[in-house]
């Protein structure tokens, strides 16, 4: 089981901030492919990966990173703090 978090417009498009999933995805990209195939709102949120960032266990990562041992995955747009 893995916690998946969504922020900003990713959260809005998917319609929830967090969910717990059972997945056999080996990488972030595989998890994204699974999510896309679930429902249109996921497909819309993940339409353009260039517009997205991913964090694994609260560290910025990349879409080809492995998911082994990861407990928390977060998807969000490029950050706009400061």
């Amino acid at each position, binding site marked *: 089981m893995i916690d998946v*978090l969504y*922020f*900003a*417009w990713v*959260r809005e498009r998917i319609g929830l901030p967090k969910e717990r999933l059972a997945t056999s995805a080996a990488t972030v990209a595989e998890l994204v492919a699974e999510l896309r195939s679930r429902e249109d709102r996921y497909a819309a949120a993940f339409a353009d990966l260039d517009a997205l960032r991913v*964090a694994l266990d*609260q*560290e*910025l990562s990349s879409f080809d990173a492995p998911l082994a041992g990861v407990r928390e995955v*977060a998807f*969000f*747009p*490029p*950050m*706009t*703090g*400061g």
Partner: protein
Amino acid sequence: MATRVQAAPFDLAAELAGFGQGPKVGAVVTFTGVVRDDSGTLRHMEIEHYPGMTERAIAAIEAEAAARWNLVDSLIVHRYGKLAPGEAIMMVATAAPHRGDAFAAAEYLMDYLKSRAPFWKKEFTAEGAEWVAAKSDDESALTRW
């Protein structure tokens, strides 16, 4: 070194009381980010963040600045939630023996906070609400460090 992430407003003067004391401090630089209203139509802004990761990311940025420059102290305060035009969003303060270190560290902290700390801004106007897009300038600002 200190980091705070909070919904409540902060007071720059109160934050600086007691900051950067000691005989080695010759230079204190502060940066304050303020909610701008260029068009005159902004009602308010909402800042979302990623609790847990936010604090970690900021602490890592601050530690990197402390490793790169000769700093005596640094402070980062960043707000989330609802902010009105003119309100302070965040502040950075650096204290160093010399001005070059204090300025460079403050700019470095700002550049990294902009693009590497998990905050997202949404602007609310009479016409509706819109997420602020990241600027490519902010991303390319990181290449100078």
